[in-house]
């Protein structure tokens, strides 16, 4: 037996130490992190159908930044999932849901929520080849798929986008069988990118599509952002133009100003500029046939409905905002989309913001009902231990809606 003693003691020593380290680490993480909503107002049930992903990073407690997902009112951590699911994890709750529920439909489809439009019965997917093949140059061919959730049947069309080059699909709005494709591309006879709108009808599929509108040309601005709609079942699409502000010593723009808000009607293919408010911030959103605009000063917001045809502003009422900046981030960089932190669904406004508590930050979410002009929910996410958890940053990253709840 002594012959093996060296072998066995080395093996035993290393196994004990390695397992010991794993165990020690497990112990030193105290109880594994668990999150919950701290409700200030209203009821958490108002968040059903709202899914989001985020992270809870602690420099002292854990060795990694655990990504969490909030779905159907429950927090789950990515690392709690089975390994396979972790690997296929997308930092977007909508994509995770699609991958989980429609795995074969999602095969070969780019995982950008903006390429998908979901209704209660269908999922639409519009993308160019460059969305899935990173080597391919942006091109003029779009693949438009329709997936019937009930029959699980998929119909795919291929169409050529004319009137421009280097297309990038940003969103696809749906109204029955009619699709409105919002893309950025370089229009013919131009060298700058522009927002080009195409129309496609599943009942009369065409192989060649020509732009029905060029937003940049219509607004006369070369810096345009589109509303980051989550459902894309709206008739009206808000756009806004930006102006460059401050420029630093190296000639880099370090600030942009919002210039004007525009509304595009997907039925008449017309664009109208919205009237500005004299004071305060302006927020523009849309849902189905409605256009909602808000005038926010500090924590007080006044909400209006704007009629596209008559261009009349009709006051709905006013609300109190959870913070003076919630729902509006002013990024230096001009992203393609705005309204990242404010969404209008089912007559409710969903607003998020990361708030600072001492050195760390927590995510805040507020839900406003436009019918009652009440805050139906307001709360923030924190660990079960609450704010005494040091060095903890909790942030909501991506938010999406499950249309079957509305």
């Amino acid at each position, binding site marked *: 037996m002594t*012959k*093996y003693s*060296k*072998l066995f003691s*080395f*093996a035993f*020593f*290393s*196994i*004990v*130490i*390695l397992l*010991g*380290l*794993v165990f020690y*680490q497990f112990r*030193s993480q105290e109880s594994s992190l668990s999150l919950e909503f701290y409700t200030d107002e209203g009821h958490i049930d108002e968040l059903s159908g709202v899914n989001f992903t985020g992270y809870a990073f602690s*420099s*002292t*407690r854990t*060795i*990694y930044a655990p990504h969490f997902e909030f779905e159907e009112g429950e927090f789950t951590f990515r690392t709690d999932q089975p*390994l*396979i*699911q972790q*690997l*296929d994890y997308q930092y977007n709750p909508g994509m995770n849901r699609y*991958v989980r529920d429609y*795995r074969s439909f*999602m*095969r*070969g*489809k*780019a*995982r950008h929520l903006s390429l998908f439009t979901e209704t209660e019965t269908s999922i639409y997917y519009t993308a160019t*080849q460059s969305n*899935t*093949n*990173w*080597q*391919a140059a942006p091109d003029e061919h779009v693949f438009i798929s329709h997936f019937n959730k009930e029959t699980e049947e998929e119909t795919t069309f291929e169409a050529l986008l004319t009137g421009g080059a280097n297309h990038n699909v940003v969103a696809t709005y749906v109204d029955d069988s009619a699709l409105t494709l919002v893309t950025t591309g370089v229009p013919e006879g131009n060298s700058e990118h522009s927002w080009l709108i195409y129309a496609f009808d599943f009942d009369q599929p065409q192989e060649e599509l020509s732009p029905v509108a060029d937003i940049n040309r219509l607004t006369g601005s070369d810096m345009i952002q589109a509303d980051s709609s989550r459902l894309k079942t709206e008739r009206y699409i808000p756009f806004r133009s930006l102006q460059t502000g401050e420029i630093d010593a190296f000639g880099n723009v370090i600030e942009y100003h919002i210039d004007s808000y525009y509304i595009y009607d997907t039925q008449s293919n017309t664009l109208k500029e919205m009237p500005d408010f004299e004071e305060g911030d302006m927020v523009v959103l849309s849902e189905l046939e409605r256009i909602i605009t808000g005038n926010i000063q500090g924590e007080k917001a006044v909400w209006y409905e704007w009629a596209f045809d008559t261009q009349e502003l009709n006051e709905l009422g006013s609300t109190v905002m959870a913070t003076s900046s919630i729902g509006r981030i002013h990024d230096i960089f001009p992203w393609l989309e705005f309204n990242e932190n404010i969404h209008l669904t089912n007559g409710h406004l969903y607003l998020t913001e990361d708030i600072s508590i001492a050195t760390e930050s927590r995510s805040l979410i507020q839900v406003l009902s436009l019918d009652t002009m009440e805050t139906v929910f307001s709360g923030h996410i924190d660990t079960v231990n609450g704010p005494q958890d*040091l*060095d903890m940053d909790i942030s909501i990253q991506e938010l999406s809606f499950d249309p079957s709840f509305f």
Partner: protein
Amino acid sequence: MKKTLKAFLNLTAFELDRLSKFLYALIGVTLVANMIGYVLIPLRFTDRINAYMVQNSVTEQQALEVYGELSFYDILQTSWILGPIALGVSALLLYAFFIWYREWLGKNTFAYRLLMLPIPRMHIFYSKFVVIYVSIFTLIAIQIVSLIFGFNLMSALVPSEWLRHMSFFSALSMHPFFYYILPLEPWIFLAINGIGLVFLHVTFTVILLERSFSVKGILIGITYVLITLLIALFPAFLPELIGNHYYLYNSELLILTVLSLGLISFTSIMISRFLLNKKITV
């Protein structure tokens, strides 16, 4: 069955015995260098703070603002800690070659003895393999013990107000070296060791190719390495080949990678077995 297991254990214990002096040397170097680092770095830090406080007649707080608080990570980054690890990794890598070539070296052709043992010749292959892995794990375990000791030593040598608030595991996981070498994330640890295992199998196969066919064997060996690389990297290039990065799910790519690594290991073992049984020359 029990008899061959006993013979295998015998052989493994024997191989470990031959390696143990080498391993003790590595452990010694690691511990000595680490200890120096654990003492030297905190002492140098406190000296510097104290000197600054005296010279500029400022408070502790101000001195700390200039130099920053000390963290375990600062110690981990020094070559007192990283040096022995690099040494251990490269030494064991060299040993993976030496463990075979020594049987043919010098006057003592111990290969005769080993190959003429009345046990399956793959026992020789596996025992050498296991011994290298036992050494790797032993070194890692020693390193862990040393690090735990070092963390406590540092905490004892430096006033706690001068220490940055950073847990033992945060410091380790911040460091790419330790993140991959230590079992902080079980999957990463398994993956790294799985790749190491396949790598060792391929290395052994190449050595046996050389031992069987000499110069021609080296050429075959290089070709074999290239083929295994191609197979191992194939899943990574597959999305490019298909022209769709979303056609396969990450989990499927991982499974493919695991399968291709498994295939490489299996082929290496089969080739090694064939060479040991039919082609090896003393």
